[in-house]
């Protein structure tokens, strides 16, 4: 969003651009003024785009060899692993790519929570993000069903059965979802279709997510509005492009480690046993990235309320911009919020841990306390905190500390470095 009107230099470029302003768009994307104080937590947007494209490309290749049929799916996956050229590589990238995608999205979400990126005027960006996150979970869940192993089958059975909790029509809904009276071939084929569709929906939403971002521009670690373009900003290219690229490469090293040296560590051994409707695995557990919500689901004794709690845990995020009453965005200037933020991080990690454990005894108790705290954080702590908290005064601009520094910023910086 530069001040000047962009005109292509060449005649042909001008002719084309007058009819379809793609060059204007490209110019906007490269010139896009970005706060220059963005830290590495801001590089995960680019990393996530990479993850999405990686999943789509590897997924397309897998779909060329995979057979969505209850009798052949498991075998076709082994065919990919053994007989398709570099099929093992493509499949391991896709399977571990899902985990990497979620790792990145969790960092991205928690960055937003720390720096208050969801607050006015960025509510729409945030809500689109939550929808993307929901779709990611749906895509990942259905993707996990496709190899038709034991966890695929029983995971699908457990999750689809949740819909039976809906009063009156529950049972009917479940039969409708299954396309029969149990998880079977019709379930597999429709999951495959949806698994293929959802990534493209996500892609569309990502475009909207970025579009909505480019209206107010990026938030930044200080959380104050930045005049654009000004000495506070740098053009997206080359400054942010190279920084995102550097962070992406670091991320790819971690990614490569999993793909090449521990490709099955994030999966469950039972999924290498072909689906068998007559044998239930000892513990049915979802993939690691869904565990906190699984813990919330199981911590409520009533089935319907458990489902409601699980869904609320995600949907509550959509109204977060209105639950958080504080006008200050960045946690750097909210000493109390910062503490509660880290408690929430710990709480979600604890939920993830107990989600992987059997729902009994001490684990169940911990899950209940952690679930209660999760909702307490959003419904009580955040609204009250925004009204009561004594915040640290904000600097006038993000350049201020760079050009000599204000006492506020110096203090904030010191605190920040401790976190990172």
């Amino acid at each position: 969003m530069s001040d000047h009107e962009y005109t292509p230099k060449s005649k042909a470029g001008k002719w084309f651009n007058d009819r379809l302003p793609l060059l204007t768009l490209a110019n906007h994307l490269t010139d896009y003024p970005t706060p220059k104080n963005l830290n590495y937590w801001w590089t995960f947007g680019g990393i996530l785009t990479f993850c999405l494209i990686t999943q789509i490309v590897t997924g397309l290749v897998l779909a060329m060899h995979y057979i969505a049929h209850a009798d052949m799916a498991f075998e076709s996956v082994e065919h990919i692993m053994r007989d398709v050229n570099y099929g093992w590589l493509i499949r391991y990238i896709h399977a571990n790519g899902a985990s990497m995608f979620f790792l990145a999205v969790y960092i991205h979400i928690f960055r937003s929570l720390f720096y208050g990126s969801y607050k006015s005027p960025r509510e729409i960006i945030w809500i689109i993000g939550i929808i993307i996150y929901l779709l990611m979970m749906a895509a990942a869940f259905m993707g996990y069903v496709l190899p038709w192993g034991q966890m695929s089958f029983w995971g699908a059975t457990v999750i689809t059965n949740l819909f039976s909790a809906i009063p009156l029509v529950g049972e009917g809904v479940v039969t409708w979802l299954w396309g029969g009276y149990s998880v079977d071939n019709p379930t597999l084929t429709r999951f495959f279709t949806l698994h293929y569709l959802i990534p493209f929906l996500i892609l569309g939403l990502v475009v909207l997510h970025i579009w909505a971002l480019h209206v107010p521009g990026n938030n930044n670690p200080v959380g104050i509005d930045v005049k654009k373009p000004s000495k506070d900003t740098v053009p997206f290219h080359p400054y942010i492009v190279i920084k995102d690229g550097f962070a992406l490469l670091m991320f790819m090293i971690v990614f490569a480690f999993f793909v090449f040296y521990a490709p099955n560590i994030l999966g469950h051994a039972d999924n290498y046993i072909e689906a068998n409707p007559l044998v239930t695995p000892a513990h049915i557990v979802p993939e690691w990235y869904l565990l906190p919500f699984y813990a919330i689901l199981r911590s409520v004794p009533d089935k319907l309320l458990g489902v409601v709690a699980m869904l609320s845990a995600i949907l509550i995020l959509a109204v977060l911009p209105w639950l958080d009453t504080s006008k200050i965005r960045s946690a750097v200037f909210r000493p109390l919020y910062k503490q509660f933020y880290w408690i929430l991080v710990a709480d979600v990690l604890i939920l993830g841990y107990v989600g992987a454990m059997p729902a009994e005894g001490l684990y169940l108790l911990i899950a209940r306390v952690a679930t209660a705290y999760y909702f307490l954080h959003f419904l009580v702590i955040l609204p009250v905190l925004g009204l009561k908290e004594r915040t640290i005064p904000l600097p006038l601009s993000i350049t201020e500390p760079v050009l000599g520094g204000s006492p506020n910023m110096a203090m904030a910086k010191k605190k920040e470095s401790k976190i990172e």
Partner: protein
Amino acid sequence: MFCVSSAIVISAEKVEYLKTDWTFKGLFGKFDRASLQRGYQVYTEVCAACHSMKYLSYRNLSEKGGPEFSVAQAKAIAASFEVTDGPNADGEMFQRPGKLSDKFVMPYENVKAAEAANGGAYPPDMSVLVKARGGGVDYIYSLLQGYEEAPSGMILDDGVHYNKYMYGNKIKMSAPLSDEIIEYSDGTKASVEQMSKDVTTFLMWAAEPSLEARHQMGFKAIVYLIILTVLVYFSMKRIWSRVKSEV
């Protein structure tokens, strides 16, 4: 009248698996070729009586990164099995010697037949068995050596055996290995420990035939990424040096 039966106490504590030095672990891990060939011998002479390996083909035996039998050897192995083919021009199924392109011949027609012959327990297909068990190779290696006398007080049904490493300690498979049960063609002493190690190595390859290629490519890919990361880091420093800020 109440009859207090002696409760079977299943030890809930985690058992430590037996450890051995696997050559295929680590950044540069590769299979021990001789061990793979011996492992195939154990599989085909012992395990294959009950356990199928339906995702493997005889051609795999001569492929790079595997036991690497010569093509002639693999052909001979394939030909030693009778394969049902057909239907022929008369509409009849017929038997013929196996070819490299054939899948490993299964010991039973189907799962039901396998169950019927094994007291109701299906001997699992071994193609990806190592990846289908939580403890992986260490678990299989231990299980093969985990047969012991059942502790006193533990009642075992007919056809059920005690195994230290089996989940719940009860297993329907009788101890498959005993010293010198087979004679290794390369002269190695066929102790239970040796055979366990060889056959587990073979099963690891069967489950992950691309393991060596994966390790080799992984090393190259990561070294490449590290070099590129360093170059991009310095480019980034240079580009950002134009701006009064810190990266």
